[in-house]
Structures are given as C-alpha cells and as structure tokens.
C-alpha cells in the first residue's frame, strides 16, 4: 500500500486537529507533509518545496483569503503544480457546488464526515480514490 504525501488545506483549527488524528489512525496511507490555513499559505509553502512536492492536495472550500476554488485554479494554472491532483472536501453536498469544483479541475470531491471523529473511513476512501483513478503517477 503506497503512502501518499498530502497537504491539507483547512482553516478551522479544530477541524485540522481532528483530521490529523483521523489520518494517523488510518495507518500509513498518507503522510501529512503540511497543514495550511488557506490557499495563500498553500502556495507560499509550495514555493519553498522545490523538489519535494506533495502527491495530493486536500482542500476545504470555504476559507478566508484564497478559498478552495482559488486553490484549484491556482494549482492548474501553475505548470509546476498542474499535475498534482486537488481533491476538495466540504460539508456541502450540493450538486452545483460539486460540479463547479470538478468543472474547475478538481480531481474529486469528498463530503466531510458528520463529525470530526469519523475521519478514518474518510481517509480510507480518499486513498482508494487515488488508487482507482490513478491520480498519482
């Protein structure tokens, strides 16, 4: 089972905390290389990476500053990062929003679990998607 390097973009502190908890409890599916609060901070961090870029970016939609949509377009437009799949996660399951994300270029869209305590299945599902869709070379 391959371990993917993942950056989590999420503005809510508590959410971040429990996400991290969930990822760790899921085993060695992912290695969280960074947790940033919004799109601006993501791109700042990416700038500094040079060689070791993450495999996947998991991003919330609703963030102050550059939000999820900005993350998608920002990643797509930069040739350095265009290949890195961006998966959006949000509480919303509204079709229009999902379509919008996918339309903009998100690799996939996952609805967040009901509470922060149920992240493990979420992480497993995320891994499965990446594998099935061969999002990472």
């Amino acid at each position: 089972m391959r371990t993917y390097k993942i950056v989590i973009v999420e503005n809510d502190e508590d959410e971040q905390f429990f996400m991290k908890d969930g990822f760790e409890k899921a085993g060695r599916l992912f290695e969280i290389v960074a947790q940033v609060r919004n799109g601006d901070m993501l791109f700042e961090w990416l700038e500094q990476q040079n060689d070791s870029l993450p495999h996947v970016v998991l991003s919330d939609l609703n963030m102050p500053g550059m939000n999820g949509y900005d993350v998608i377009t920002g990643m797509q437009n930069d040739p350095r990062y265009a290949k890195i799949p961006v998966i959006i996660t949000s509480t919303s399951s509204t079709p229009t929003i999902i379509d919008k994300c996918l339309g903009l270029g998100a690799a996939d869209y996952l609805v967040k679990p009901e509470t922060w305590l149920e992240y493990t299945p979420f992480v497993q599902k995320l891994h499965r998607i990446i594998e099935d869709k061969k999002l990472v070379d």
Partner: protein
Amino acid sequence: MVADTQMILDNLTEAVIVLNRDGGITYINNAMSRISGYDISDLLNKSLSILYRNQQDMIKSQYELQVAARTGNFVSEGWKTRKDGSRFWGEMNISSIKDASEAIEGYCCTLRDTSAQKEEELQLRQSEERYRIMVEGVKDYSIFMMDAQGYVCTWNDGARLMKGYSAHEIIGKHFSVFYTTEDLDKKKAEVELNIAIRDGRYEEDGWRVRKNGTVFWANVILTPLYNEQNVLIGFSKVTRDLTEKRLHEEALRQSEERYRLLVEQVTDYGIFMLDEKGRIISWNEGAKRIKGYTEAEIVGKYFSIFYPEEDILTGKPKHELKVAREVGKYEEEGWRLKKDGSKFWANVVITAVHSADGTLVGYSKVTRDLSERKNSEKALRESYERYRMLTEELKVTNSELSYANQELEQFTSIVSHDLQEPVRTIKSFLKLMEMKLSAGEYEQLHTYIDKSTNAANRMKELIQNLLHYSQLSKGSLKEQEVNVNDLINDALQNLRASVEVSNANIELDCEIEKVYGDKVQLTQLFQNLISNAIKFTDTENPRVRITAQQDNDQVRFGITDNGIGIAEKDLNKVFDIFRRLNTEKAFPGTGIGLAICKKIVERHRGKIWPQSEKGKGTTFYFTLQQ
C-alpha cells in the same frame, strides 16, 4: 259650214294613213310624216309593214287588214320603226272603208306615238315590280295587302314563314283567321280596321295565330290605303313576330334581375348608381351598412352628402365626377361621412357609365370601408408596440432574475458551508465529550463546551446577519433629506468603543451638507465602512479620513484608511457575502459588512468600489443621491 277636209287632216296630231283595197298606202297626212319620218313619196303603194322592224312582214299586215275588214277595225300597239331606223311605240287603229254594198274600198289607219306614255308605264311597272319583289322577299316581316273588307290580296315570304300559310292558301281569305278565338269574339279584327280608318293607322302588340294553331306574340301595324279619289281601296298589314324579342327581353330582364339581386346583397361593398348629375338612383345592402342610410332616405339625394364639409367647399365631389367622365374612372382613399356624421376611411371607385351609343348615362360608385382595415393595422401596430415593450420588460426582468439567481446561489453556498460549519463543530464536540465521559476523562470537557458555545454563537450571529442582509432588499426605503454630519456622527457614536480602544483618528473633509436616503441604512453604511477602516489596521493607530464631494448630480464619498490594504486579485471579491480575505483570528468578522454596504448603496441607486494596494491602505468610494 263644211270644213276643208284636207285642212282638217293636216292639222290632226294623229297620223292618218289611207290604204287602197290591197293595203297599199295612197295617202298620208303631215302628222304621219312627222311621226314616221317618211314622205308620201316614200310610202306610196307600200304596205303598213314598212313600219315594222321586219319590213317584209306581209303576213302580219295581211292579217291585220283581214281583221279590220271582217270586224270593222283592228287595234294594236307595238314598236314601229321610223325612216331613220329609230323606234317609237305606236297605237294603231285600222278601220275598213266600205261602200254601200259592204265591199271593201280601202282602209283608213290612225297612228299615235305613245312612246312617252309607254315609257312611264314601263317605269311604273318596273318600279312596282321592284317593290313587289322587295316586299315578297322580306322574311322577317309579314307584309301583305287586304282589300277594304279585309280579304287578303297579296302575301310575302315573311308572312308565309311567320304564319305558315302559302300564298295560294291564304289569298282571298279574310284576315281574321290570324286572330285567337277570344279576339274574334270581341270582333277585334273589325275594330282594328275601323281604328285604322279613323286614326290613319293601328298598331299593337298582341297574340296572333299561325296556320298550325300555335299562338305567337306579334307587333302589328295596319295602314289604310286610298286611291287618288280618297276612296279606301284596302289596307296594308305589317306583322313582326316578337316571340324571339320577347324571349330576349325576358332573358335580359332575368339577367338584370339576377344582377340586381347580386349587387343588392353584397354587404362588404357599397355599390350604387348615380345619375349624370350625381344624384343617387340605386342603393345596396353594403352601402346601407357602411353609410347608415336606408334606400328610402338616400335615393334622389346628391352624393356629396357623403363628403365632409371642407371637401364640399373645395368642390371635391364635382371634381371626382369630372375625372370619372374624362378618364373613365376615379379612384382614391379618403374620408367619408356616415349618416350619423362620423367619419370613416374609405376606398372609393367612381366609374362613368355610358349607353350603347356613347352618351353618359350616369356613374357607378363602389365604396369600401377601410376603417376595419385601418383598425386592424392600428391594432397590429399597437400589438407590435406592446410586444416590443413586453420584450423590453422581459429583458429587465431577466437581468433582475439573473441577479436574484446569483444571490440565491450565494445563499445556497452560505447555507451549505457557513451554517453547517458551526453545527458540525458542536456535534463533533458533543460526540467527543460523550467519548471522554464514557472513558472517564474529564479534563478537556470545559474546553469542548466553550468551543461548542462559541460555535453556537457564531451561528446565531450568522443567521442574524443573513436575515438583516435579506431584509435590506425588501421593504420600502424611508427616503428623506438627511444631514451628512448627523449620519457620520451617529455612526461614530455607535463605534465609540472600538474608536477608543484602537485610538483611531477620524478626519472629516465634507463639502456636502445633505443627501437623500434612508437615515437608518445610511448610518449603517458609514458605520460598517468606518468599522472596517479601523479594524483592518494593524501596524499603527488607525487613521480614517472621510471625504465628500459633488459629482454632477450625485455626491461621492470616500472613506480612506491606512490599513493592510487589499491585493489586486482580491478587489472584486470583497463584496461577496461572508467572504473573508483574512482569517477569523487575525481580523474577526463575519465577512458580511461590505456585502451589506453594497446592498445599501445599490438600493440608494449609487455605486461603491474600493481603491487599494496591499499594505498601503484602502479607500472605499460610494455615491449617493441628493
């Protein structure tokens, strides 16, 4: 006194020739020389046959003499030849001269030149012959003569064809055979003759009877004929078979009837006739419907009655007739009057009507009421106009809907995220608490409860803001003249706390005294903007400058701060509902303040826009009415 015989003989106009017993000429008088051209020397001992063409015709002259000898005289008429070869018509009378014993002594012959009379006679005969042939030959008319009692004397081809009798069948019969029994009972035939005598002629159209018993309708003219002594010698009767004519007339009448019915019943067109002076002589259903007059009311009136007064004064009706006469027809569209005085737009054609010989008999006029057409045209135009207006309205509604849609989408987004987020937080912490409680770990519980409460408060604030924002669109603005200074002072009053805490410096640079709008909302507008100006300053003490200038018929306000500024890429995002460019921690706020400002400005028919550079402060401009 005994006249000199010789003298008598010489003075006679008749020619006298004396013949001897053998028929030889012994004596001629002067008249004979004159008539015949011969002298006595020419004729002495010659026979009378010298006067004939065949001068050697002894047989004839012998015969004549024999008759004269036997009966006493011989009379003849015939051509005689003169000495010069010319001819004359002569009446000859040969008498024998007998002695006492009845023996022939000789002959005496008188000769008269009756050429002239003969000529007349011939001419007359010829002319009569011609007339007779002519009359006989006429086939269309029955022409015959009757004697004074009414018996048929002559018969022509026409009579034969018309009545069926041939000449020999009818001549000598009484002309009453041509009459019906009814007429005979009334003694019509006799009555007609008497009237003809009395009046000089009798004419009638009546029934007559053919040989085969069938009756026919005839035109009959009886004319009495008198000789030179004014004695009635008979009648001429000329008969014309009118049956064909009658059929013709009947056909014509029927066709006219049909035509009249046709015209009368047309309801869409007024079709009627005018006499040559322009008076109305006929009327149809359409004319009645269009113009309102009944036939009784309008016949006899001048057609100028249909024209508006100004047209009559300029002589328009007359002019139209004139053109129709000269050109054949007059056509136009124009105003005409109905019986009730109302005008209608008509299409009119006036055609001059001539009889067969070319004289002007009158005019026909065809009128069409175009009001309906005009009305439909007008209705069509109006409907196009309405359609066009509706399209415009639709466009406006469409763009309004579009805008409303956008807002709805935003709303959806808000509900999706921003309201779900605190709920999730609370749920998560509750679950966590439950887990900890079960595990007997009580340390973090207070933290979890606090966080939950915060989340709940966040949600409440969110909901309130949302409601407030949505209310801004509805309801009526209480617009009035508002004092600008009052507005700003009220806003600053509400922000007193944060102004003090941040030690903010407020600068006013207002040229304008009054604006027009809702006091409450405008106060909030200033409040939000000033609050932002203060809030988003981190390095120094906030300095807020408020300006107001006249800008054509509006007022342009500016609220400038020395705060963190807005990056160019974010400039168009600042007004999005709940859109925060910075994290909650750094700069608290729900992100709805500017959305509210925009809503208020737009409701007041103004505009709002930011001017900023990251790190170099921000100015928000907005316009209001006066």
